[in-house]
């Protein structure tokens, strides 16, 4: 594994950490308290090369460069770079980090399924600033009120009318759902086809019938906008159907593959949260005295912190293994699920344990560990709940689909 020696990874980690410490950390409590999107931070990030659409940028950059890409002497570390950066940014603030990279959820299917024209259109739409002078964002609209874990039951439909598709339905828990410039919406095109009838469409903001819905008030990751999106007789041209040129598409399977591919980076975010809470608590324990000794000199505190370090290190290694497999074109679905589920568990338990050590200091407004505790929980829910990860793991390891 390259992660601990590779100079590029080390360099990127340092850069991301610097950004997290000096740009994200100072504003994070404000966006958490006020539930606001960190637009200024996003502009700074974009200026510093933290792209909203990295996967798509790379896909575009790769066009016609396949020969160079296959050069065996060049290390393949894209996924490892991604998880290293994701951990650092989430260390700064999980909500802000999701605001910074949330658009990549929508860019990812465009990168893998979109035609050259669709990819160019997507990047063109994302270029520059929106009508409010803000960084543009994109939204991947998959989940629905009735379909959380079970994405096979999508009820949003797209019906063909001439050279258009007409989309109807409601989407829920959509990152950037209220303010996105461009949406990738998943809809059932032919109920008779079941899962393979599900297809993705590019929908530009302002398209009649696209109605951004209510913003959710969440327990954590508050700097990341989550909202409903409604489609009411929303008509898009046939050109907006992703993967239309392919003779056969994976339908819903495509979205599942995308979730598989983003899982290591999501897990890395959970590691970042756990590490932030752990480091804060360690510093507290090294500073505060209890009965004449530093907290950290008490065995039950020292062991608790050691336990946390074990959990964090284990999660990080599992996630980097999944990323390394991905970089080396080895199937990583099992390892991605193991890594994500482990990291989500660790983040929940580490942040909770930190709260106990801090005591009433953690109930102060704006306390970092209390925020980490709230932020961490979503990692066991989104991008496949802990239960879904265990289903995937069980299926891969011993072939059962237990209910």
């Amino acid at each position, binding site marked *: 594994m390259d992660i601990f020696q590779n100079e590029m990874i080390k360099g990127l980690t340092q850069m991301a950490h610097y950004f997290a410490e000096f740009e994200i950390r100072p504003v994070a409590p404000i966006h958490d308290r006020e539930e606001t999107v960190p637009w200024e931070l996003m502009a700074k990030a974009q200026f510093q090369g933290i792209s909203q659409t990295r996967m798509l940028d790379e896909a575009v950059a790769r066009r016609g460069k396949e020969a160079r890409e296959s050069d065996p002497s060049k290390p393949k570390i894209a996924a490892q770079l991604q998880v290293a950066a994701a951990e650092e940014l989430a260390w700064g603030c999980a909500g802000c980090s999701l605001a910074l990279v949330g658009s990549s959820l929508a860019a990812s299917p465009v990168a893998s399924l979109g035609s050259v024209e669709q990819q160019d259109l997507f990047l063109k739409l994302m270029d520059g600033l929106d009508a409010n002078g803000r960084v543009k964002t994109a939204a991947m609209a998959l989940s629905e009120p009735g379909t959380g874990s079970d994405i096979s039951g999508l009820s949003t439909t797209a019906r063909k009318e001439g050279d258009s598709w007409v989309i109807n339905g409601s989407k829920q828990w959509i990152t950037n759902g209220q303010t996105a410039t461009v949406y990738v919406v998943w809809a059932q095109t032919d109920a008779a086809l079941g899962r393979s009838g599900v297809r993705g469409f590019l929908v530009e903001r302002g398209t009649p019938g696209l109605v951004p819905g209510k913003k*959710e008030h969440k327990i954590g990751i508050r700097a990341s906008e989550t909202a409903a999106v409604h489609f009411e007789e929303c008509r898009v041209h046939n050109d907006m159907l992703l993967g239309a040129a392919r003779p056969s598409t994976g339908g819903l399977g495509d979205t599942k593959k995308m979730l598989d591919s983003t899982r290591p980076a999501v897990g890395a975010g959970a590691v970042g949260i756990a590490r932030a809470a752990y480091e804060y608590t360690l510093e507290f324990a090294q500073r505060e005295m209890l009965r004449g000794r530093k907290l950290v000199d008490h065995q039950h505190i020292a062991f608790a912190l050691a336990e946390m370090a074990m959990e964090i290190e284990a999660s990080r290694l599992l996630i980097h293994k999944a990323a390394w497999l991905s970089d080396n074109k080895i199937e990583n679905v099992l390892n991605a699920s193991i890594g994500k589920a482990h990291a989500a568990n660790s983040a929940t338990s580490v942040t909770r344990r930190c709260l106990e*050590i801090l005591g*009433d200091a953690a*109930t*102060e407004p704006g306390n970092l560990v209390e925020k980490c505790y*709230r932020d961490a929980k979503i990692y066991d829910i989104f991008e496949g709940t802990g239960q879904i990860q265990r289903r995937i793991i069980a299926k891969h390891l011993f072939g059962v689909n237990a209910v």
Partner: protein
Amino acid sequence: MQFEFTQDEALIAETFRRFADRNLRPATADADREAKIPAALLAQGAELGLYADAVPERAGGYLEGAYSHRSRALRGLSLGWACPAMGEVFERGVELALLLGEVGGFDDVLADLATSEGSAVLVRNDGRLGILPDGDSAMVLGFFPAVFGAAFSKWLAIASLEPGAEGLYLISLADCGRSSAVAETWRAAGAERIELGGTKARIVTRDTDRITRMLDEAKVSLAARAIGAARAAIEFAEAYAADRVQFNQPIGQFESLRELIDTNRVSIEAGEALVLRAAAELDSKSGPVTLASMAQRFCADVIRKSAVDAVQIYGGYGYVNEYPVEKLMRDATAFAVRFGSESFERVRRG
């Protein structure tokens, strides 16, 4: 140990169950959002005797004879079930009233404690306060980052078991530096940051056993509310799991979620039994009791796990404030640290 409720206990349990269900529950979401308990609710609580029942008759309260900690635990189960923040506010001042009633004097304070507006908050010196005794009084220096219930109260009682600074110190909140410290936990409970800059305190007692006993009483009440809140979380989750269909069946039929619910239910029943036993121990002897700290520790763990698991069962809906479990997950954290961090408790025991 008696497991049957007496007639009085059953009546109290039923009265507060109804109060929690009809009066408090419908108001909890707004109270959390606005960080405020409606005055009418506080008045209704007072009408039910929530403050006066621990104040002796001579000082204008209802207490004659022995106070029943079992009854208090039973009502705590309902108050915590409705809203942990409201529970904290409604249960303020009881331990101080019982202590002042015992030591005599302090009738001016006791008269306040019989009312909702005059009540007291009890905090614990975790070793970071500077306390300079001076005869019957003391100067106190330091701060408390977030004292729940302070915005509604007139008095601050500081329990200190630190070597050289043992005592129960009583301070008028009017003499303290105060600023709002409403954060994410128990938002409706009127938390304030309290600054003490050499503030003068009256010393109520220096008897460490009596102070420990006072903290024990508070811990059992806290543990009861923790169990009530945990029960609420799992009830919500169970009802949701019965309705929510994924993969063509109610998610509550998946064994993993069934197990998650069952594990929590077992813990809740065990916690409730421990709370009632600890309360019975308080009723049966006068000094410190062994089960109070155990009850707080166990029940704080139960609520933390139940609330987090309830959010997990709700999935994405659990993470947003339209559903009640999000609030319970935020509220779960204070139970463990209400009387000092767990570390502090462990070292003290050692």
